[in-house]
């Protein structure tokens, strides 16, 4: 009898110990999480030189204002040429074909992704395989990000096979998504 009792007691103790340990590690994780958040908040404070207020609500409001301000400045710069963003973007669409292009379809594409040595090589190869010729192009690289905006038309030697818009989009997507850029995917 005593054995059974002591067995129950010790298993209960074991359960308690487990629960205690779990809640301890949980509160540890929670504490570390709070530390991270506070660290980020103080970093944000240093990035905004004029903040006198220390409360979270005001700080976040100022961060939002600052970001909107910066985006506005970037929009102004964009009139001089494409400006890469820090998020990947892909846009493919048809353009109204001007008369002097012989009525051929013009496709406008815009790619924004991380810069890497093989990007242009891959782009050249892809455009070649799709029998597309570039008629207008602009590109810019900043902070390791690149943006390429260009207009293409079907090459004369493409015979009757014209790639569909979806096809072009798919091909350009694969140019953007090379193994080296997988680091851009964040986990929630």
């Amino acid at each position, binding site marked *: 009898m005593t054995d059974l009792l002591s067995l129950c007691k010790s298993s209960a103790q074991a359960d308690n110990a487990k629960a205690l340990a779990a809640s301890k590690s949980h509160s540890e994780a929670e504490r570390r*999480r709070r530390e*991270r*958040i*506070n660290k*980020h*908040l*103080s*970093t*944000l404070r240093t*990035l905004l030189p004029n903040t006198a207020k*220390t*409360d*979270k*609500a005001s700080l*976040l*409001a100022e*961060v*939002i204002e*600052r*970001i*909107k301000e*910066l*985006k506005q*400045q*970037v929009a*102004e*710069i964009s009139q*001089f*040429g494409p*400006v*890469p*963003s*820090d*998020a990947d973007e892909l846009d493919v669409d048809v353009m109204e074909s001007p008369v002097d292009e012989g009525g051929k379809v013009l496709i406008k594409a815009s790619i924004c992704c991380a*810069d890497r*040595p093989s*990007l*242009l*090589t891959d*782009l*050249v190869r892809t*455009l070649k395989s799709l029998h597309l*010729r*570039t*008629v*207008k*192009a*602009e*590109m*810019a*690289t*900043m*902070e390791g*990000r*690149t943006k390429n905006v*260009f207009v293409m038309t079907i090459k004369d030697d493409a015979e009757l096979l014209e790639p569909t818009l979806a096809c072009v989009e798919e091909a350009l997507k694969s140019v953007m998504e090379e193994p080296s850029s997988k680091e851009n995917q*964040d*986990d*929630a």
Partner: protein
Amino acid sequence: MTGRKRLRPGEAPRPRPKDRQQIQDRVRELRDIVPNATKCSIDALLEKTIRHMKFLQSVTQHGDKWKAGGDVKGERSAENSSGLENGASWAMELDAKGSGVPILVENLKQPRQMLVEMLCEERGLFWEIADNIRGLGLTILKGVMESRNDKIWARFNVEVHAAKEVNRLKVVWNLTQLLRPSGKNTSAPSFVGSEMSDVCSESFGSRFQPQVVASHGITVSPGSAW
């Protein structure tokens, strides 16, 4: 329990209930304007916010340089043949017809930056030229395909990395390879420019034999591609 817990230095006071709502609103707004931030945790959101702000900050700094001079071309010296004070290398690939494809590489005032220009016409060589330049380890800051006097040119502002030594002639030589049908290495291009001494002292190996067309200025034959 309404007692305050003792705050450690650097800790902001815990938000009151009405502030909490405000904070929630701000967080939601932040998730909208920071890219890829809709479903992540608060600390991840803040981290992305910091990265995004820093990125936008540096982009605007670059952009100020663009706006300042209207300076799309970079600080360029006067375009006369003897005024190439920053240093420039030209090449003109002369084919049988006597018309050529000009290639120009020029130092810009900004440190480690060069301007690369090449006629690209209907061949649509823009991306190939860009790839060629990139292949030398140069970063293309800005590139554009534009028409000048009815000719289509590719123009690139490039940056050399401090560690790498890439000289202008190497860039020019590399680009001339684009104009040849693959594999064949026929006649060497004719080099004309203000730095003939550089041409002679660079060693490119035995394949390279510069032909001096003129000692000053540029030779333009009638009906040339200029």
